[in-house]
């Protein structure tokens, strides 16, 4: 599998996990769970909420930039490779 196929799969998996967590927490009632007297439920909800926000912030603020950077770096490295091949020996 090519590196880009792996990256695409990883991003798709992260997006799917984000959607799953969002829908699951919405159905379970995030706020009610966090405020629930049962400490176990509150802990589960807290961990899931932290994971949701970490994924959400990464997918919006970090992942797109990293993917574009990979494209830019790849292009530059290929140009450097081409220049290297055509350099007079």
């Amino acid at each position, binding site marked *: 599998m090519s590196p880009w196929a792996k990256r695409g799969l990883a991003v798709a998996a992260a997006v799917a996990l984000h959607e799953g967590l969002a829908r699951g927490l*919405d159905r379970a009632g*995030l706020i009610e769970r966090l405020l629930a007297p049962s400490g176990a439920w509150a802990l589960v909800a807290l961990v899931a*909420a932290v994971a949701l926000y970490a994924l959400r912030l990464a997918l*919006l603020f970090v992942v797109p930039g990293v993917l574009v950077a990979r494209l830019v*770096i*790849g292009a530059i490295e290929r140009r450097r490779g081409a220049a290297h091949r055509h350099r007079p020996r």
Partner: protein
Amino acid sequence: MTTSDASAVPLPRRARLAITAACVLALSAVLPRAVAGRGAGALFEGDNAAQGALARAVAADVGRDTGAAAFHTGSTRFDGEWALVTSQMSALGLSQVILAHPAQRARYLPPLRLAVDHILRPQTFAFATQAWGASPLDHLDDERGHAYLGYVALALGALRAVDPATARAALHDRIVDSLARRLARSPSGALETYPGESYPCDLAAVVGAIGQHARLTGVDRRALLSRMSAVYRARWIDPATGYLTQTVDPATGAPTSPGRGSGTALSSYFLSFADPALARALGVAVARTGTRTLAGFGGVLEYAPGSSGHGDIDSGPVVLGVSVSATGFALASARQLGDRDRFVALYRTASLFGVPVARGEGRGFVAGGPIGNAILLAMLTARSP
């Protein structure tokens, strides 16, 4: 190697890091604001589909009945207040959607009536009965307190605005008459919410309810509203920041705590039902003193520059001085003032941290819960006075 091309010549690690950082920063400045701001323009314009999606989610929550037992804040008083506010904001929001789109009346009037029914159940007032030793609706002829009834009266007015023949009209009249009489007889202009406790934000709900009722029924309350406007401007609004003090001495009306963004923004919304000029002054203060933006995301400071404090049950979490409640409540004044850029910036923040999801035909915010979704419906559909 960052590419499968075997002929590529790798960049130095430092150069790759610099390119990655530059790309992350550049895209952070444009992409998240575009994604989180989706739908903000339609809500600002009052689009039927955008408002309807939020209304359907709130209507479903009303059908599930969120009473005080659904909350576990650790305080029976706060649980009761949250249940009351959930039903009140649901009623206000659904009423605003009907007023904006009269064709939706048949769809949203039943849940609006149900939200008002929930408010008027005796158990809703258990928190207040506990504090006062008497049920408020059984003692409307008393001369003191119960400023939280302003929230109830606003919800009844919201129903009456779209259902003039409602069977609740007589009770609406009695509650507003009682509040107006108590306010008129208060030397300081302050009514107690609980014994020994007065909050200008709760009084804004009282004043808003009185103005709303006057508009709906034609009862002349201009003298009382004018007096309360003077009290707010002369005593309770900080002239330096425009923020509204959070608490006052019930006897003298003297401010006893600094201004708060959450109370100022919510009061601006409540007062818009009675005193558009005063509501506008508070809304402008929230915009000028309290609103901060970063990369297109907006937030509102809980404490004005020069004062500080912690987050509490009113503000919600306060992060870097910005409070969840103030930011959410400020959506209403941004829309009412026609400040599209600020509305969109605040909505982006609500969307980023609220996490909107589809719920059948509706759309709700994961992090809102019933109370947060009801508040956001009311704020996002707030109408110009």
